[in-house]
């Protein structure tokens, strides 16, 4: 039978291995497949009872197995989940809530108090209560009969250059297409034990959460604090017998850069996928040398195409200065490189065609039209492709390589950031006259320059209330005046050179 709803994964698996642990964290909290199934059906029944259907439901919970059940519960209710994070600053959360205008926010005991402070006039409900709603089988069946595979299941927010985050909305069919093709490439199965690093409010966690219900595998949520202490991190991987990780590069280099392999090795780890950032070859070689039997796969893709679109299984050694290719697209996805005249080229903007292309940006037709566009190679019928804004090329082996971003969007510690969004936020601070954020790539630092009547320390403090942690400038410098280009724009190139020590 063809899968057309992601919940069919869960329903097939719960029949097979109901008592097996599906999700667990480092603090002893866990849920079996049967518990995930029962709780999520209860939550779906709650939404049905309240008459909430086809709407965004904000999930504001601690990162726990129960949060995953809340995601599926939302889908059982025929709604789409929008995870937001505890550590997100209030300003950003309020912008997201303003975009969604949600009626319901699901919280747990630890977040409910904070939720009261948001600019939110809907209803706050407690997971511990709604997950005990008696199951209404008839209502859930009615919802399922109504649902089609292009109905959305989640929204995740990415950085936007105007300072307003963009909500990428994805449907069943895109997620199913992605999970099927990713699983085939990566060889996931029932014995896979994932060590999850990615926050649940990013699409990156799809890689673990959905194959887990598809195969009856297991996801262990790695405590965030461990990513500061690599030795303890590897000990945790061993304790939990984790055999598969799909992490941002900075989490992996944390282990290799500190010589952890001299002390202890991840004994069970057989599958390592990485992405979202360029892997420094020096660090990558340390990994490969320490783990000769482990398969390494580089993944590439934007949130707008449901996570990852391309893969490359490392099959050879790389010299320093070389970059690891992004390889080739998954089955059922095509990559088109377009030059500045919108013609197919060997080097150009990476554009994605396929079922995995998401539905667009929620409540933002303008931004959607800019990036989700008619395929310029096809004049004959409507066909949407997604323009990533990344520049790629084919190397002499016919493999795709990522070259750089087209605009000011950068990758910092695994997060996609628009420098413009940082600037837009800094500009709103009292006393700021002008500012410019540049990225010092070699050191992975965001350097903020500003002119204004505010002390550096005060600015830094203010920004902490406005920007997520990963978007905060690493270095802040006050200037008497902003360097300008001959035509009067802020001289980004000069500041970029200054940040990297190439100019005084």
């Amino acid at each position, binding site marked *: 039978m063809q899968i057309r709803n992601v919940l069919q994964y869960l329903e097939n698996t719960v029949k097979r291995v109901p008592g097996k642990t599906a999700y667990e964290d480092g603090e002893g909290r866990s849920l079996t497949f049967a518990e995930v199934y029962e709780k999520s059906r209860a939550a779906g029944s709650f939404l049905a009872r309240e008459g909430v259907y086809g709407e965004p439901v904000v999930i504001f919970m601690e990162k726990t197995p129960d949060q995953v059940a809340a995601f599926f519960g939302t889908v059982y209710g025929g709604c789409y989940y929008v995870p937001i994070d505890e550590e997100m600053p209030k300003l950003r959360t309020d912008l997201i809530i303003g975009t969604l205008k949600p009626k319901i926010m699901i919280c747990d005991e630890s977040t409910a108090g904070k939720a009261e402070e948001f600019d939110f006039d809907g209803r706050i409900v407690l997971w511990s209560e709604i997950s005990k709603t008696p199951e209404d089988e008839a209502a859930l069946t009615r919802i399922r009969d109504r649902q089609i595979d292009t109905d959305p299941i989640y929204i995740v927010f990415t950085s936007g250059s105007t300072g307003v985050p963009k909500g990428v909305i994805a449907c069943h069919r895109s997620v199913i297409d992605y999970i099927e093709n990713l699983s085939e490439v990566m060889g996931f199965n029932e014995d896979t034990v994932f060590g999850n690093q990615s926050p649940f409010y990013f699409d990156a966690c799809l890689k673990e959460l959905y194959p887990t219900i598809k195969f009856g595998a297991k996801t262990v949520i790695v405590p965030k604090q461990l990513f500061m202490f690599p030795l303890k991190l590897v000990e945790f991987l061993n304790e939990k017998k984790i055999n598969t990780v799909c992490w941002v590069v900075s989490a992996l280099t944390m282990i290799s850069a*500190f010589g952890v392999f001299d002390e202890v090795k991840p004994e069970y780890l057989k599958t390592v996928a990485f992405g979202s950032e360029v892997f420094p070859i020096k660090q990558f070689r340390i990994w490969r040398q320490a783990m000769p039997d482990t398969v390494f796969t580089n993944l590439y893709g934007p949130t707008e195409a449901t996570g990852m679109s391309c893969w490359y299984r490392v099959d050879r050694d790389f010299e320093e200065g070389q970059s690891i290719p992004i390889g080739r697209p998954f089955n059922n996805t095509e990559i088109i490189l377009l030059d500045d005249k919108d013609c197919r080229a060997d080097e150009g903007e990476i554009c994605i065609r396929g079922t995995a292309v998401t539905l667009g940006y929620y409540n933002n037709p303008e931004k959607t039209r800019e990036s989700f566009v008619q395929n310029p190679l096809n004049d004959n019928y409507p066909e949407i492709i997604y323009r990533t804004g990344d520049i790629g090329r084919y190397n002499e082996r016919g493999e795709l390589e990522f070259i750089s971003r087209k605009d000011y969007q950068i990758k910092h510690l695994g997060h996609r950031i628009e420098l413009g969004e940082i600037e837009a936020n800094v500009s709103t601070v009292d006393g700021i006259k002008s500012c410019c954020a540049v990225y010092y790539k070699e050191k992975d630092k965001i350097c903020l320059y500003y002119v204004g009547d505010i002390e550096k320390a005060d600015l830094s403090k203010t920004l902490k209330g406005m920007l997520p942690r990963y978007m905060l400038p690493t270095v802040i410098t006050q200037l008497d005046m902003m360097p300008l280009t001959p035509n009067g724009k802020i001289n980004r190139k000069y500041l970029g050179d200054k940040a990297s020590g190439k100019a005084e």
Partner: protein
Amino acid sequence: MDELLEILNELHSDVDYGTCETLIDDKILDSFDIITIVTEVNERFDVKIPATELVPENFNSAKALWALIERLDEA
């Protein structure tokens, strides 16, 4: 010690590093901070913090971190 405080102040100017002994336990420092601190310390003090020393106890206070730098410097 002053140079170390400079690094720390740049990260969180609102923390009293003279008295705080729970920088990790109270989640004041996160992984981004640790990476920055380690990079800066390695560079400015010409030491190399090994994995075995990268444990919460060494980062809970400015004092503990300074003791670590001195220990590494002597070795």
